[in-house]
């Protein structure tokens, strides 16, 4: 479950080692309805990639494809491929439970388990058959999530008793305790105040040394502050009256915000719509 395999450091390795996730001609359907159209992109390892765009553009839907959380939705299916470590995540032989152990997720609303702070963090390692020192792992995860100092004296207390920002950092600690490869974040700061938001952003900058991070955000300043790469999604009306998301542009964050190629992107980041 650790990812310090030597080959990733060999010079001149193929580009695959630099890519944590890759979507190829990905179409996302609900029943026969095409919700997100033809997305191809590569998520770089140990970088922060942000997805921005107006509501309904499918950025969260796309994010949830990366750890197969959409499988829970009855009518959901995809066409195209998503690769992680040269494996097609949607291949028949792939176990979605194992995918989610490698690709963790932090949600919009802080959602700690109704358990103690300790058990919140320990749950993932426990069910994954962690054999080492659990106390150590819990402490290390809480330290990484910059929560340890605030909770070290009350690990037995309920996670629900923490403030919103602390809960979200607890959720991050819970996610990284499983030692995943990629951490997906679905608007992790949407329910938080600016100070808690700042803490999470600082934390993400630390985390990217060890993990690949993909974040969906409505906050364009946030995207420009923290991310290395940015994908802009937009939404268009279909003939049948539905809304269809598609990717407009994917580039280095600097380019997206200062020198975008597409007019739509320029209008969006300038605040002219959305």
């Amino acid at each position, binding site marked *: 479950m650790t990812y310090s395999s030597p080959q990733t450091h060999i010079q001149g390795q193929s580009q695959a080692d630099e890519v944590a996730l890759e979507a190829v001609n990905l179409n996302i359907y609900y029943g026969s309805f095409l919700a997100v159209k033809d997305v191809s992109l590569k998520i770089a390892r140990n970088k922060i990639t942000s997805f921005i765009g107006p509501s309904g553009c499918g950025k969260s839907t796309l994010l949830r494809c990366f750890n197969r959380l959409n499988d829970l939705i009855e009518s959901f299916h995809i066409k195209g491929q998503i690769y992680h470590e040269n494996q097609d995540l949607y291949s028949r032989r792939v176990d979605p439970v194992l995918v989610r152990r490698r690709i963790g*997720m932090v949600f919009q609303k802080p959602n700690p388990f109704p358990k103690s702070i300790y058990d919140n963090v320990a749950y993932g390692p426990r*069910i*994954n058959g962690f054999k080492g020192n659990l106390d150590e792992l819990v402490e290390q995860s809480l330290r990484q999530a910059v929560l340890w100092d605030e909770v070290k004296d009350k690990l037995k207390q309920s996670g629900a008793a923490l403030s919103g920002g602390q809960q979200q950092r607890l959720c991050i600690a819970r996610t990284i305790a499983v030692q995943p490869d990629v951490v997906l974040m679905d608007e992790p700061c949407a329910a938080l105040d600016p100070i808690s938001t700042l803490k999470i952003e600082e934390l993400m900058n630390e985390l990217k040394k060890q993990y690949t991070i993909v974040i969906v955000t409505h906050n364009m300043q946030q995207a420009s502050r923290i991310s290395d790469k940015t994908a802009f999604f937009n939404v268009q009306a279909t003939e049948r009256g539905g809304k269809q998301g598609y990717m407009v542009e994917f580039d280095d964050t600097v380019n997206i915000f200062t020198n975008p190629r597409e007019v739509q992107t320029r209008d969006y980041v300038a605040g002219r719509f959305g």
Partner: protein
Amino acid sequence: MYLSQKSSDRRSLLNKVLTVVAGAFVVIALIPLLAVLTYVLIQGFGSLSLDLFTQLPPPPMVKGGGIANAIVGTLLMVGLASLISVPIGVGAAIFLAEFSHPIVGRWVRFATNVLNGVPSIILGVFVYGALVYTTKTFSAYAGAVALSILMLPTIIRTADEALKIVPQEIRWAALGVGAAKYQTVLMIVVPAAIPTIITGVTLAIARAAGETAPLIFTALFTQFWPNSLTQPTPSLAVLVFNFATVPFKNQQQLAWAASLILVLLVLTTSVISRFALRRKTF
């Protein structure tokens, strides 16, 4: 002050009248409860004694005695019925809320509601045919089976609701750290729903403890201690039914005392269920 309220205004007058009318209906609705409670309290309190809990019912015309065998019988059968219905009911609810296909779930929920609507006397007759007629004897376990069928829909429905209240995000979070479905359900969702499930179970127990019709057909009654699950077994509810209709003063007094104990039993379980609900997570 053109904004000041005129009490003679038709609108505000109607408002007051309707509020009073609605309040009056609340009072009317509460009268039966209060009347029953006070009447049972007054009648039963006089006959309360330690003997009630230790002695057997006396033969007609004999003074004293108690209803200890009926108390034991009720506890025995309700306990046994809970042992049967709680695992089945909670298991069914877990299937409904967590695993079932929506269409299957809709039909099972409908079936549960139908079962809930079946008159308890029909359940009694059914179990009579299934267990009493075939084994040629009234028995405690036949009574327990009848009560457990009665308890099932309440348990399934409340547990189903309790599980559905647990936020979807919690399930996602568990799956997100790599939990399998069963790990999510058993270790996260069910523990979160337990206070509400306990409430449903206590409500079902309270209802079963007071049921008479299913027991008349299945456990019947005896004047003696219940000493085997395969023999007729006394219960508070059937004791009330039997003793309240005989012309002997002492038996009638015992019936009142049994009624009071039954009411107290139901009240305590309701209070316990409230208490459990105060600790609920969602």
